């Protein structure tokens, strides 16, 4: 690990015309005087030779600039400039990931800081995280020094003789298999997670050898399909994750549709190229909590140093599932809520099966408290964690940390178009193993974008903790009195 926190390097979009909230129209009467180049604090305009171009119009802050001295539209001596709302923005985003959230995630991936002219904390889903707010009652007290605030969490609290695993930020990367995403995407995630002293996860598609240099920061998954699970991959991992279920498609195994099963993917999974893979559900070897224990013991036997994480989705009895995993000997109970990301899932399952993570966390947290085992278990939440504020809220609701997925992909300029599952896969080269498409993403660039996003999140978490008068993220766990819930919809609350 180098300096802390890892350094931000400005990493701009790979596209010629990145999307922004506004568009600038430059009329033909522009005489290229260059006043706008000098004026604009966002660096929207650049000279190309002798010509002025709004090359970085995506950074334009639009009408909020109106009235200021650097408002290019008013200042232009030739009145050649016009700012309009970008009509394409309405075609970007949805209730959960609004266009503002996507654009602000891009901004953070580029600059390493949160933007100040966009909503980067909440989406527009009208429930859960989007209606929870922090009440910063300690606002007027002395803030703790930034350097004194810790975001570190321990992942082994069982005192069972297995090694302690500590991560420096309260999040790690969720399972995304080779096949569902490209090798470049996997590597970029692993490299960024190594820099931030946290983890990424192989998902259920096997452990590509290219990941071995980062093995201390790679969780490997044992999922129902057992694709690519080998003794040496289990032995390599510091954390092994059992995937019982996945929030986006609870009660269904993983899906990888035929076109995405390229020869490389098939080799890794020991399957046939071009044939769709549907992992079974549930584990054919587990029908009871005793079987579950046998499962956990099996991995513990193969790798005496590994921690065990159990990933489950959020049924009515999720609290019972969590206590079952405790007695089976798991270190981490990983709750995956129903609104999380996925490479492919039936829409009916995404929307309707099992409960959102916001409702499951407090249920499990309280139950483990009542059972007297909360201190020994690590609760990790995932499934719709989009922002630094979501992370903090999940922890305040009772989780120790979170798992993220979609946000990392958005940092790589995913638009959430949802076409990951079909044909050759992602049109932006992220969630695909198609040679031509995946060459659109460059490893260095992708690593830095993810790292920059983490940097911005880190700053925000420190800021939240300081404003709450706390010194450590562990103090926030289950502190629901820091939160309030907006019963009625409020636009700016």
């Amino acid at each position, binding site marked *: 690990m180098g300096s802390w926190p890892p350094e931000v390097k400005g990493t701009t979009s790979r*596209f*010629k*015309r*990145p*999307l922004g909230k506004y568009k600038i129209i430059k009329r033909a009467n522009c005489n290229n005087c260059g006043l706008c180049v000098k004026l604009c604090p966002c660096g929207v305009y650049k000279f190309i030779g002798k010509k002025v171009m709004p090359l970085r119009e995506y950074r334009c802050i639009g009408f909020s600039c109106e009235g200021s001295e650097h408002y290019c539209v008013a200042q232009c001596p030739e009145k050649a400039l016009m700012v309009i709302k*970008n*009509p*394409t923005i309405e*075609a*970007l985003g949805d*209730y*959960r*990931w609004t266009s503002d959230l996507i654009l602000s995630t891009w901004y953070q991936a580029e600059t390493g800081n949160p933007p100040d002219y966009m909503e980067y904390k909440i989406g527009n*889903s*009208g*429930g859960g995280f*989007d209606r929870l707010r922090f009440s910063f009652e300690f606002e007027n007290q002395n803030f703790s020094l930034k350097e004194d605030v810790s975001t570190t969490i321990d992942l082994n609290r069982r005192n069972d003789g297995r090694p302690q695993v500590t991560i420096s930020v309260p999040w790690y990367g969720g399972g995304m298999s080779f096949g569902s995403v490209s090798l470049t995407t996997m590597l970029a995630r692993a490299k960024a997670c190594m820099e931030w002293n946290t983890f990424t996860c192989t998902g259920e598609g096997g452990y590509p050898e290219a990941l071995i240099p980062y093995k201390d920061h790679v969780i490997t998954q044992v999922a129902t399909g057992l694709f690519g699970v080998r003794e040496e991959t289990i032995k390599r991992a510091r954390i092994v994750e059992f995937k*019982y279920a996945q929030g986006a498609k*609870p*009660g*269904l195994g993983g899906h990888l549709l035929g076109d995405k099963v390229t020869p490389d993917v098939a080799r890794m999974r020991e399957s046939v190229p071009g044939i769709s893979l549907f992992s079974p*559900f*549930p584990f054919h070897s587990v*029908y*009871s909590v005793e*079987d*579950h224990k046998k499962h956990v013991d099996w991995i513990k036997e193969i790798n005496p140093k590994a921690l065990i994480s159990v990933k489950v*989705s959020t*049924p*009515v009895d999720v609290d019972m599932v969590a206590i079952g995993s405790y007695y089976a000997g798991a270190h981490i109970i990983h709750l995956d809520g129903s*609104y999380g*990301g*996925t*490479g492919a*899932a039936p829409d*009916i*399952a*995404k*929307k*309707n*099966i*099992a409960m959102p993570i916001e*409702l*499951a966390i*407090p*249920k499990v947290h309280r139950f483990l408290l009542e059972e007297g085992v909360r201190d020994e278990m690590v609760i990790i939440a995932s499934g*719709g964690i989009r922002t630094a504020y979501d992370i903090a809220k999940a922890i305040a609701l009772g989780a120790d940390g979170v798992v993220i997925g*979609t946000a990392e992909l958005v940092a790589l300029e995913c638009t*959430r*178009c949802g*076409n990951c*599952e079909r*044909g050759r896969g*992602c*049109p932006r080269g992220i*969630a695909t193993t198609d040679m031509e*498409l995946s060459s659109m993403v460059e490893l260095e660039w992708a690593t830095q974008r993810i790292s920059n996003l983490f940097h911005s999140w880190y700053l925000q978490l420190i800021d939240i903790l300081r404003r709450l008068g706390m010194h450590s993220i562990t103090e926030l766990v289950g502190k629901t009195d820091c939160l*309030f*819930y907006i019963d009625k919809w409020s636009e700016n*609350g």
Partner: protein
Amino acid sequence: MPKYHINVKPAPPRFLPPGKYVLIDREEGCLGCKYCVKKLCPYGVYNKREFDSIQLRDTIDYYCRNCLYCVEACPGGTITLMVNPTYLEIGDSYWKPEIITKIWRQAETGMISVSGAGYRGPFAGSGFDDMWTDMSEIVRPTRDGIHGREYISTDIEIGRKLSYLAFDAQGKLASSTPPLIEIPIPMLFSLPGWGKWGKPVLLSMAKAAKTLNTLFIIPLAQFTKELHPYIDNLGIYIDSLEELSALPKDVKIIEIPYNLSQNFQVIKTSHPQTIVMIKIPLSPEAKQRSLTLTKNGAEVFHFSADDHGLEFAEKPRFIKDIIKDIHLSLVDEGTRDEVTVLVSGGIAMAEHVAKTTICGADGVILDQVLMVALECRLCKDCLQGIPCPIDIENIEPDWGAQRLINLMNAWRDQLLEVLGAMGMRDVRRLRGEMGRAIFYKDVLNEAFASIKRK
């Protein structure tokens, strides 16, 4: 029993469905790049595009997958994707454009909709959107994908069931067993309460009902000779007792409105082997009516709400909430298992079937959704005497039937997803299983109990 299987065949739309967005391409600003981004479209939509001169529409918006690649990659910034106003105009506040286009897609392909990335909608909502169904992590029968080796049954029975059998002194069966029909999907067909549909539509529905082996309820006034070959899969609705004599001989189900229910015994006497279904509009009185009728021997109820799933009342409740109430009252009376409860109104998506069942229905009767499958846009211009913009009166019945069959396959598959996730192998077990559902308000109040509200 052999595995039930639905044969799907693509049934492409006759009219291009409006795209959610429209691509707009400004010519000025084009730099004339050698490798234009349009050539690099991952879906090749620029190569595939055609202009339909009849509909005056470019197919590009139908093919475009909204990935925004060209918008961001064009160095001249000449391409814009905009919300399509025509798309927003389809349907209404309940039958939203997303629902309607999803129905079209399923009717075309017969496939359930699968997508990448997470859920995109609101956290929760009203009506069917204030509940989630359950799943089970480990303790459940295994299965290998939804079409696996272990069969999940979606059969339901329609008719009255006896709570017990009586025997005479000689030990002979003394109870007479009422007629019972078993259908392989918990979905029946009927016509919406509005609109002019024409013979090809009726034929499409009858053909689909026959292929699927379900039932199509049709008013006697619309029954014609052409429909006679489908009689085994028809139920006939009559408005008055006089119509009784005009019924075709071998009809399997007679549906009567509530106001004829006092004549139930009369009808049963003349048609002892025909199931008589009583249609009760959902209103505050519906519960008491159904309790009384059940005591008096009723066999099947058809509870109908309006097209938005709402009760006919001043402060209407939503269909699933009323059904819950009625179901639980019948359970309290100890008579729930004697009658079959079918419901209609506002059933627009496969998940609605599962949720209605959880709230206590045995099955659903589909109406408006079937018209949407036949490309109806719910403009209701026909009510004003304006010609149907998609000429629904003149569809090809085989095509129409295939669209309905495709939709039913997609819906059944989704029902299997829900059942499978819960570890159930029979849809009949889902009925009234409210403990296997998560109701938003309850779980919110429980989970956020310690959080201040503002």
